[in-house]
């Protein structure tokens, strides 16, 4: 249903969006490695990673979110022939809270990670709009991480998880799930320079 080059394209689009939107400071390192299915821990896979951000293996070290504890932020991008769900599982330890909350006393940790996730998914949506003119994006919602294994019940055409490391101590697990109702085939060119960054998307 989804061609291999379309899967690679979705992954590239996710990498670009995550590296552009998840770090709180422009200079922060953002390492992303794919988590192979049925593996106990994250295993590095360097292909597709941006230069200077891969190969450190940091995301596979201890400290990544426990797979089925805590909460995940869920967002959906809907098209005519498919829906893409992005689930971001943020660790709720002190270093992660400090990294995202910083001095923001007006917002809760959940609100901030929901906003960050919304920005990341919004960047994916913008990129996908170049290939699928009719798309819409949902607002973020928090779910228990124990819901994540049930993604298989949605009979996805594409399901993949990624371990993301921001800076030295912040670990996020992202899961991409695409359910397609028809053949999906496209090649994404993510080399274009982003025109703007940092603006907030209202939801």
């Amino acid at each position, binding site marked *: 249903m989804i061609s291999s080059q379309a899967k690679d394209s979705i992954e590239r689009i996710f990498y670009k969006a995550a590296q552009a939107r998840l770090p709180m400071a422009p200079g922060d390192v953002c390492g992303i490695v794919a988590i192979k299915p049925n593996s106990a821990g994250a295993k590095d896979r360097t292909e597709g990673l941006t230069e200077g951000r891969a190969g450190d293996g940091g995301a596979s070290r201890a400290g990544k979110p426990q797979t089925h504890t805590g909460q995940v932020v869920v967002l*959906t991008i*809907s098209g005519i022939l498919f829906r893409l769900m992005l689930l971001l599982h943020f660790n709720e330890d002190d270093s992660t809270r400090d990294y995202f909350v910083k001095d923001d006393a007006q917002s809760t940790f959940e609100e901030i990670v929901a906003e960050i996730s919304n920005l990341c998914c919004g960047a994916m949506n913008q990129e996908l709009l170049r290939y699928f003119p009719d*798309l*819409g994006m*949902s*607002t973020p919602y928090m779910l228990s991480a*124990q*819901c994540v294994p049930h993604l298989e*019940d*949605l009979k996805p055409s594409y399901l993949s998880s990624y371990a993301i490391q921001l800076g030295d101590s912040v670990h996020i697990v992202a899961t991409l799930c695409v359910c397609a109702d028809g053949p999906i085939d496209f090649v994404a060119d993510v080399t274009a320079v982003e025109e703007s960054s940092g603006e907030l998307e209202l939801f």
Partner: protein
Amino acid sequence: MTQSYFVAALMSSVVTAILAYLIHRFYAARAAARLREESDVRIDALAQTHARRTEETGQEEQARQALEAAIADLRDDLARQIATTDEVRVALKTAVEEKDQWTQQAKQIADEASRLKSLAATFERWHEQMISLMTQNQDMHAKNHELSAIVRHVVIVSLNASIEAARAGPAGRGFAVVASEVRELAARSEELSKSYRNSLHRNDLTTTTTFQDIQAGGKMITASLGSVEALAHQLQSKLH
């Protein structure tokens, strides 16, 4: 003598008269001949002129006929062009009427697309139902959690009962069977509670992703209607 003179004079007069007459006739004949020659020359000239005029008249007649034919052709052309002009005028009038209709239809499409964009509120209303469903799910999660706690307590109680039954010896044998049954029921309840918890999590995920799909689909439709509205406005402004 006188008579002879008279006769002679008469005779000379007659001769003179005859001679004068003859001279007169001679000169008259010469004048007549000269006049005849001049007349012939004039007649020839007039004949030539006449012939030329006749030829010119013929040519003019041909030219006149050609002109009349050309005028007739021009008249036919004019009639055809008038007919064509009438047809073009009718076609133009029809085109103007059709253009007005298209402008009206483009406006209707723009208005309809604008009106249908309010569907976004409907999709949002559906999405809001998700919060209600999820609240109910959370309530069921809490109840299941409480049930799980009770079952764990029952397991502990049944274990204690088994221990007490063992202490009682043969007298407690029947009680041990009951405690074992209770423990088995508690274990089954625990399994059921775990299964129910999994079902609730699956339900959470299905509910959330379905309603998010509805919400995102609504935004997709709203955006598409916005594009239709913009295109209809562009068409409307081009037709004006």
